[in-house]
């Protein structure tokens, strides 16, 4: 039995390692591209590893980069489990960051212990609003959420540009002719505490806690059960008496809330202000998209998303370090990220096959055990008779 458990466990480990193998395969393809660009792949990948995990600072940077991916990714888990696709993470992130910044700017002299939680809450609410609107539109007007979240992203970006060029702009910039579109730096008292003397901040811990909470929400509460029921089969959920439209809207709103919280944490933990470069990417780092990747690498499970986000964050940080070390065009990094995503997601077939085989083995084993038990019972009965 113990041996079997070990076998079972080791095959789980192989499952977990499948994405790593896939990444290695993608990097192998990347090695040829590096060669074509005249760079030494060994040096390049050495720098990648070094940049992602090679020192305390590198690990801290990886964790900081992974934090928004984890928040967004956990939110994506809720949406996907509820049967809706949320590609509006970018917009929700931006709106959350704006709301949180607004709170921070409004109470510059307030006590940090009050203002910061309030700001994070405002960020979550802002994100919930931005995710909830597509949710309500889907629930009540049958507006497809893929369409509305794509559109809402652009609306958020333009709203952000408007606010940062106008009402929220740093008063210092108002005196400048060039008017850089950023807010004032928030009070230093509001900076999220650093965990160790690196850039690592409390937000990373909050993200992990949120992942656990969302796991509890989805699998240990009635609400979570209902969201998953709606996601598995809307018709069956309806027959079971679940208010399907409400739970669809709720799933998207909760998903948005986490993306909004990511934005708020990005402000208070990393940038200490809000700025725009005209698009969302400059501020979000495409967390709205990369979070989807992290969630799916984590098998749409909040706890699985934790290592997935750190893995992907490490890839982003390390690849940039590689760019600097061997001076290849940054475009190569985007290409490599794309390859990694495609390769990792392509392991799905093997994962499914392994899972099916495992289930079959378990079933067979149970059958054997069942038979053995029956034999024992039969012999016992015989003995008893004797």
């Amino acid at each position: 039995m113990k041996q079997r458990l070990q076998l079972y466990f080791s095959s789980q480990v192989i499952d977990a390692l499948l994405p790593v193998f896939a990444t290695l395969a993608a990097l192998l393809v990347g090695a040829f591209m590096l060669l074509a660009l005249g760079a030494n792949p060994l040096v390049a990948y050495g720098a990648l590893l070094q940049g992602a995990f090679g020192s305390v600072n590198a690990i801290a940077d990886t964790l900081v980069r992974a934090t928004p991916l984890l928040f967004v990714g956990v939110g994506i888990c809720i949406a996907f489990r509820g049967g809706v696709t949320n590609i509006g993470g970018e917009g929700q992130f931006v709106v959350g960051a704006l709301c949180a910044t607004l709170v921070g700017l409004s109470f510059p002299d307030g006590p940090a212990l009050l203002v910061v939680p309030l700001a994070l809450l405002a960020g979550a609410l802002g994100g919930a609003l931005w995710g909830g609107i597509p949710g309500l539109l889907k629930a009540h007007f049958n507006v497809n959420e893929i369409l509305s979240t794509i559109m809402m992203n652009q609306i958020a970006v333009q709203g952000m540009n408007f606010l940062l060029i106008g009402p929220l702009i740093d008063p210092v910039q108002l005196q400048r002719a060039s008017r850089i579109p950023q807010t004032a730096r928030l009070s230093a008292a509001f900076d999220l505490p650093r965990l160790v003397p690196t850039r690592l901040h409390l937000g990373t811990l909050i993200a992990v806690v949120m992942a656990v909470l969302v796991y509890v929400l989805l699998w240990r509460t009635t609400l979570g059960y209902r969201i998953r029921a709606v996601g598995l089969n809307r018709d069956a959920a309806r027959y079971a008496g679940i208010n399907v439209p409400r739970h669809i809207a709720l799933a998207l709103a909760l998903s948005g809330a986490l993306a909004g919280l990511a934005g708020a944490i990005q402000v208070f933990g990393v940038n200490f202000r809000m700025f725009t470069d005209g698009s969302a990417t400059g501020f979000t780092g495409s967390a709205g998209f990369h979070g989807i990747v992290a969630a799916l690498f984590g098998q749409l499970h909040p706890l699985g998303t934790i290592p997935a986000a750190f893995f992907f964050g490490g890839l982003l940080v390390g690849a940039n370090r590689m760019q600097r070390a061997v001076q290849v065009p940054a475009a190569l990094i985007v290409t490599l990220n794309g390859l990694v995503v495609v390769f990792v997601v392509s392991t799905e077939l093997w994962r499914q096959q392994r899972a099916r085989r495992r289930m079959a083995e378990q079933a067979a084993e149970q059958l054997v055990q069942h038979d053995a038990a029956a034999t024992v019972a039969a012999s016992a009965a015989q003995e008893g008779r004797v």
Partner: protein
Amino acid sequence: MRKMMQVFGVLVVLALVLSACGGGGGGGKFRVAIVTPSARNDLAFSQSIYDAIVKVQTAKGGPDKFEFVISESMFVVDDAGAAIRDYASQGYDLVIAHGSQYGGVLQEIAPDFPKVSFAWGTTVDTFAEKGIKNVFAYEARSEQGGYVNGVMAGKLTKSNVVGVVGPIETGDAKLYVDGFIAGVKASNPNARVTVNWIGSFSDVALASEAAQTHIGAGADVMAGTAQMVVGAIGVAKDNNVLWLGTQANQTSLAPNIVVANQIYDWSGVILEMIDLINKGTLGGKAFEITLANKGLYIEYNSAYSLPADVRKLADDTAQGIISGAISVK
């Protein structure tokens, strides 16, 4: 014992080699790292700093005396921040953050590396008032060339409608467009300038359609700024509408209709920074490129026959700005 000595010897040699390799800073070679938001060949903002650093390298005696590295397309400010931090920790003498959106991260990073000099553009803020002493600022007074371009546009338009395509209404783009409008008004009070802020630095298709809209509204002279205007230049070419460029030389895209470009040349500013750094001043000074210090200049397209009177007016206007007789804003 002998073996130990051998190992020791190898270690000493290794350490010497390593220290020779890693020895930047005082080793005579000046090392610069640049972080830019878009590609070095964008025919716009990022290209201007790349062209400058290549020029500086030549002036300083080539790669043996002057080394530079670049991280381009750092759209993501977090990544740019990591790059700036990384270059600083590698002991580069000067780290240039070439994007106004990088100010926030630079303000956080610079105090951690008091021995490294940083430069932030385009802005006038060095954070000196916040006690940070190792950040230079640089800005292009692009409204000056914008004004000269505007003066030409005002004279060249026959329809009295001039169209401008811009990204978002801030930073370098705002300076240029403000100057351009003032220039048009100065040379032709009857002309109407309409501006289309397309809300993006990358949407070439929308920039192109914005140009179409200007032409539909009667514009016969156009201008624009930032990297997505290549779409607008194409439309100008197809419709035989004149174009006034900025940030880099855009003549190659449409040799028949580009009148002139305001060119940014940051090399003078970078050379000045290097001088200061060599003398021990790591920051605190705000530089600007202007028509007067030749960091900005108007490059006329020789393939386009600009009427002599307009050319003279443009030259006079530039001189007026240099002498201070004309004040732009």
